[in-house]
């Protein structure tokens, strides 16, 4: 089994899709970092002007409706309410907060890699050849799953770390890094792990669907149709079922309870996601075990 795992690891790492996607994502993040770097350079006068505009806007709207009844000194209220948001310079804390916003694209990357890792094997009929070397099908499939989990987990985490590094020069040179402490870094790392976990879950989702459908495109199509169409319809007609929908639990797991309408917490969301993926993987394995190989 360990040899199968190592072979699959080598295969995944040698895949063009992984290398090409890594290059593209690294290039995009570098460009984003450069754009932020060159557009975040503000003179003290510009900083002061924007701060005044923001303060003025808040005061004119009487604290954007947030001020408690009886407030008369709206300027004081706005200064306190806006806090660090009044400063237009790039605060590295914002970079840390934005990690969760990367959840969706990185989940998609995991999904595509997971689906294509086995879809390509069906397409090229190389699974047949593998089975003439190791005929225990469950072993073959489990080795592939484990290798996929490891590759996606490390890959996505490295890309997220690269994102954090790509944004740092702009904050260090033209923004604020003094607000970054161990708590902020800890929170950022936790967000990265959540995004990473979701990318792995989606990779396994793609893997399971492609194993059953014997096709990458089918896996992506079915997954997309379910998430974008079926769950939207269910959400519309049976909102009370939202607690059990994949999309809602993903959002809850990623963004936290504060922004979720669901009645349970993040841990339950994680358990639901793991249960769904586990069931799908079991079904895929059972099917693969009995399937006729072309």
């Amino acid at each position, binding site marked *: 089994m360990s040899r199968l795992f190592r072979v699959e690891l*080598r295969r995944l790492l040698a895949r063009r899709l992984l290398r090409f996607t890594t290059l593209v994502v690294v290039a995009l993040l570098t460009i984003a970092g450069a754009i932020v770097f060159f557009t975040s350079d503000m003179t003290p006068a510009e900083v002061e002007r924007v701060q005044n505009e923001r303060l003025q806007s808040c005061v004119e709207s009487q604290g954007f409706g947030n001020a408690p009844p009886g407030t008369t000194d709206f300027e004081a209220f706005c200064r306190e309410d806006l806090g660090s948001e009044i400063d237009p310079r790039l605060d590295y804390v914002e970079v840390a907060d934005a990690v969760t916003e990367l959840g969706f694209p990185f989940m998609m990357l995991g999904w595509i890699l997971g689906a294509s890792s086995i879809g390509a094997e069906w397409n090229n009929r190389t699974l047949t050849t593998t089975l003439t070397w190791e005929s225990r099908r469950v072993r073959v499939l489990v080795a592939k799953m484990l290798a996929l989990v490891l590759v996606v987990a490390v890959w996505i985490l490295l890309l997220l770390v690269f994102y954090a590094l790509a944004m740092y020069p702009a904050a260090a040179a033209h923004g604020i890094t003094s607000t970054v402490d161990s708590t902020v870094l800890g929170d950022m790392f936790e967000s990265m792990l959540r995004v990473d976990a979701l990318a792995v879950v989606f990779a396994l989702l793609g893997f399971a669907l492609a194993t059953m459908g014997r096709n990458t495109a089918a896996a992506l199509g079915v997954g997309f149709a379910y998430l974008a169409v079926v769950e939207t319809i269910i959400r519309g007609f049976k909102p009370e079922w939202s607690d059990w929908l994949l999309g809602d639990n993903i959002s809850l797991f990623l963004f936290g309870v504060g922004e979720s309408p669901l009645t349970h917490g993040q841990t339950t969301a994680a358990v639901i996601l793991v249960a769904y993926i586990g069931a799908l993987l079991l079904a895929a394995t059972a099917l693969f075990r009995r399937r006729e190989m072309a």
Partner: protein
Amino acid sequence: MSVIEVRGLKKVYRRLRGGSTVAVDGLDLVVEPGGVYGFLGPNGSGKTTTIRCLLGLARPTEGTCKIFGEDSWTSLHRVISKVGSIVEAPTAFPNFSGRRNLELLAGIYGLPRTDVDKALETVGLRDRAKDLAKTYSLGMKQRLAIAGALLKDPELLILDEPANGLDPAGIREVRDLIRRLGAEGRTVFVSSHLLSEVQQFCDEVAILSRGRSVAAGPVKEVLSHGRGAAMLLRIADEDQAIAILTAAGIAAVRHDSYLRVEIAPTEGARVSETLAGAGLYPIELKADEVDLETVFMELTETLQEASS
């Protein structure tokens, strides 16, 4: 113990729109260790289905398939390390080099790189080993697949149409390779629809038609197919030759543009002598050799007549 043992193999494919296709119908087959065994039949006769059942890639509807005594569907893993195979068209990751494709396979058993080099050398792909598999011709892909099958240094090789896509030189190389592998003491089970081609290097054959074995055994026995040894004679005066030979106790009948003389080729001199004694001289005298294709056609015609 037999290397391959197939008993009452039946494989039925159900169609989605109802109905079914019987790909293999009650096949029995025993392959003993050593030598080259030809598994022959036209396209669609059930060869690949049988091989897929043998390699645990498809589940028999009825009957059993065993390799080295182990059931192919349930316990093939105990002997799979002794079996090298190609099933149907060659498979490879198109965006990996030929070498990387083989290295991935070798990695499953922890085989050293030198084994990969050796396999590439054997099939004559060493110079193109670094090229992507997608740039290979069909023949080169076939060679790569053969290299993959040889990589395990297997006791049994199951090769499904190994000459597919090869040019005449390639076919000859594969033929020589199979012959050599058989001579080394391995068992080579090779399927082909090119009956006459396979006849040249097989020790034993089984001929399949519509999922059933219509003949099996040593090549010579299958070729003779119940007929006695004979020679073909071309001569100017056929009527007189028939009369003279019949009078001498040698049966002769017209056969296309020849006379078919019922006598072993080793006694060909007796025919010449008898005819020369009567002042008749053969234009041509040769052994009546049949090929597997002819035998196959005769067998299937007989079967068709019997069934109608």
